[in-house]
């Protein structure tokens, strides 16, 4: 086994390839980490600016201010700080805002504020650790293992090796194993280093390493298998076949699935929701007050018996019609959420058949920057907004002054807990593909021996 490593590492090309993979993994980890640091800083800067604005408003020290004004002018920053593993796979963090602002007005008009990222940067896709593993690692696996057998034949050593090798199966397996271990180390060592430096939990790291190990096994075994199965294949034919598989698995199939998913799952509701919400809010101004209060009191009967609104404007009417607009779009919101969840589920399902997608999903589950996080964040914001409304309603409907204690008691937003989500389907996909590739290799090694034995038994 030591000689197998020596053989690989003494080849300048192989060594260069492994070093490049090692460096790419390190750079990707560093880029991901600095990106997350930047997002933390962005959140802090926004929080400081927001606090400054609140100080300027001065409501915290006033005791006679109208609750409606406080609700209108006070923004609450709702942050989505990166999780401990977010640096591994940037995911939707590239396009979603790390921090948003919410006030007492209708939520659905505020919830979908986008982020002003450079679209050209986003469309290029992130160079994160997930990319290095999902895209680049297989390429190097192909480079190292595609000529496992064809290379020996083309260099004229196959006959000698076969005449010497005690058990062909263990010989080729050892060669594959050496390649697998080197590949795994090239990405695993930077990852372990980053985990230790950043002091992330070791259990998650171990699980991820197992996942990466399975993915590496899949590609290395597949690359070796092509040559072992079709023994007359030239190394160039083997390389072309493998690269076609790579292009299919990491480029064509996922992009095709994405296009199909965009078509089949109607998630294109965000724009409609915002549009309808605005229309509802605008219409309310010109409608009789009862058009607002009837549906509102149906939801909140406890405020029915408060003083009726007789003038042209009252804050409680204003916030009531904002809430009624939220309620009006609620069915669409639910449909939108379901559609997105369905998309996420379909993507997970795809991981069962596409190891590339399974690997990406495994990263996504740990990094928690995907659509699931977006949905969790949105529902946390929704809950926060509800608490905020409930805090204000007594002051609005009973016309109580919003004093400093009321101000101090305003709820603040806590980002939802991150529970490490184990994507069972990704594990199935990675496990199955890894085992399948291993099985194919072993079978192709056994085949010849078995065929010979069978012929012998017949005779």
């Amino acid at each position, binding site marked *: 086994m030591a000689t197998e490593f020596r053989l690989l590492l003494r080849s300048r090309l192989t060594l260069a390839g492994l070093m490049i993979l090692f460096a790419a993994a390190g*750079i990707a980890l560093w*880029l991901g980490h600095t*990106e997350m640091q*930047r997002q933390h800083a*962005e959140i802090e800067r*926004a929080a400081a*600016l927001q606090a400054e*604005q609140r100080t300027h408003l001065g409501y915290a020290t006033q005791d006679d201010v109208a609750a409606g004004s406080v609700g209108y002018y006070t923004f609450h920053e709702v942050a989505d700080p990166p999780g401990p593993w977010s640096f591994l796979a940037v995911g*939707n963090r590239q*396009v979603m*805002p*790390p*921090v*948003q*602002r919410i006030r007492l007005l209708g939520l659905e008009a505020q919830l*979908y*504020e*986008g982020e*002003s990222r*450079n*679209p*050209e940067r986003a*469309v*290029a*896709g*992130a160079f994160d650790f997930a*990319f290095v593993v999902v895209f680049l690692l297989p*390429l190097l696996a192909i480079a190292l293992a595609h*000529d496992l057998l064809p290379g020996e034949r083309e260099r004229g050593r196959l006959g000698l090796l076969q005449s010497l090798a005690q058990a062909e199966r263990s010989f080729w397996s050892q060669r594959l194993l050496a390649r697998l271990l080197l590949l795994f180390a090239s990405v695993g060592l930077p990852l372990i280093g980053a985990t230790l430096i950043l002091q992330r939990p070791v259990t998650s790291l171990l699980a991820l390493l197992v996942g990466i190990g399975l993915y590496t096994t899949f590609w290395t075994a597949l690359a070796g298998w092509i040559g072992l199965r079709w023994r007359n294949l030239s190394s*160039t034919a083997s*390389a*072309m076949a493998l*690269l076609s598989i790579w*292009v299919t698995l990491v480029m*064509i199939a*996922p*992009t*095709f*699935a*994405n296009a199909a*998913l*965009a078509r089949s799952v109607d*998630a*294109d509701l*965000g*724009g409609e929701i*915002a*549009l309808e919400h605005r*229309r509802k809010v*605008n219409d309310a*101004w*010109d409608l009789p007050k009862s058009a607002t209060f009837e549906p509102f009191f149906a939801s909140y009967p406890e405020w029915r018996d408060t003083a009726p609104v007789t003038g*042209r*404007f009252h804050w409680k009417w204003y916030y009531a019609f904002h809430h009624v607009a939220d309620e009006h779009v609620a069915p669409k919101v639910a449909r939108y959420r379901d559609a997105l969840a369905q998309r996420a589920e379909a*993507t997970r399902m*795809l991981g069962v058949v596409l190891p590339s997608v399974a690997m990406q*999903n495994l990263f996504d589950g740990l990094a928690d920057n*995907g*659509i699931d996080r*977006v949905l969790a964040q949105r529902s946390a914001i929704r809950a926060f907004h509800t608490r905020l409304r409930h805090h204000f309603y007594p002051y609005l409907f009973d016309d109580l002054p919003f004093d400093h204690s009321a101000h101090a008691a305003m709820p603040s937003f806590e980002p939802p807990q991150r529970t490490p989500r184990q994507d069972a389907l990704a594990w199935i996909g990675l496990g199955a593909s890894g085992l399948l590739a291993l099985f194919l290799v072993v079978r192709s090694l056994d085949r010849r021996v078995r065929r010979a034995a069978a012929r012998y038994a017949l005779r």
Partner: protein
Amino acid sequence: MTHLITAVAGNEWRILVRERTFLPGAIALLLLLLVSLAITLERYQAVHEKQHEHTARADADWQAQPDRHPHRVVHFGDYAFKPVGPLAHFEWGVEAHTGQSIFLEGHRQNAANFSDASESTALLYFGQLTPAFVLQTLLPLALIFFGYGAIARERESGLLHQILAGSPSAAPLLLGKWLALAAAGFAALLPLALLALVAVVTTPEHALRVAMMLAGYGVYVLIWSGLIVTVSGLARNAHGALLGLLALWIVLCIAIPRVLPELAGQRHPAPTHVETQLLAEAALREVGDSHNPDDPYFNAFRTQTLERYGVERVEDLPINYGGLVMAEGERLTSEAYAQASERVFGQHARQNLWVDRFAVVSPHLALLQLSRSAAGTDTEHYIHFLRASEARRYAMVQALNELHTYEIAFQNDRDQRLGAAAWDAIPRPEYAPPDARFALARSSGALSILLGWLLATGALLSWLTRRLERAHGN
């Protein structure tokens, strides 16, 4: 000489198409082109229909407004839509990440745009299957598969020596191989050319954009074909040529296009949307607050206005002072927000400029820029849309504030309404995408980088010619 080259090219072409990999490769490429075209066409159609529907709805809503106070209309708002150009069929660019609509209302610039990207799962990070992606990324790979052995295999079999030993120059052989391989690439561009023809016929104003695009892709094919022949001629054997070319492809088409924008983002960080808003609001606090009765800026504004009309009290003004304050407030906020967003645009432009400069290292990157710019689907075109939308928003709000000033009396201001006919006079121009000249600066920059690569490829090939001639004793 030309006769010789065409003869060699013809022969090389015959060899190429009889290659075992050629037919499956060509069929796969063609299928991918068709599928991706179908996908983008469908997407285009969907966006087009939705936009049509939303425009009609926004128009109807606008017209169906009841008698209202003009300030209500300021908040009622309006939508602006970015039409998807005909070349977007082919090159979807940043469209999935920007969305194509924006809400316009008083007091604020809106960021509530909906993009496919924010609704996408991890799958989006594998890229998008568009005809542009197929031609930019997969076509070079196919050409590598077709041509890696062009010279290397003949060297292995001894055929190369046999041919070169008996011919006065290696140039016709190399040129012939280059042309034959490029011809295969051009064949893959045919669907694009057809599409371009349709675009030119139906929308002649796009002719220049189409020409830029076709030129870019044509040069790109020539560059790759030349690089493939060169590497094939330098490699010791076919296997080495294939591996070398694949490494080149990975670096030029996969790694660089991802790493550079990332580094650009780190070098020129752009503030978040929230930070931009907060900074604009802080700047506004410094100027004046129209809602604060003791605000020094608006006190001075009132004194000025009263002096201009020679009256003592705002109630005595011949116009509605409330409307004037609104207009002045809008002017101030728009200025502050515009400054803030220009800072963001500036950072984005700096990021892109940084990447553009480095396009020298990868023809793929240069082609990306050229293709998106010419198709009108790059950041520059999106920012153009945002600026135009802001101008439209500002014009709309100020027209309404003017109505407020001149048509609404100061007394009982909020209880008055204007007839719905008044809204028809408000300017609601449809967004007109910029003409081809807008794209010219960026796309011609990219095209000159591509031409530079072509020259370099030509130089490489002539160097290889001399090298081969020396090696085979001519």
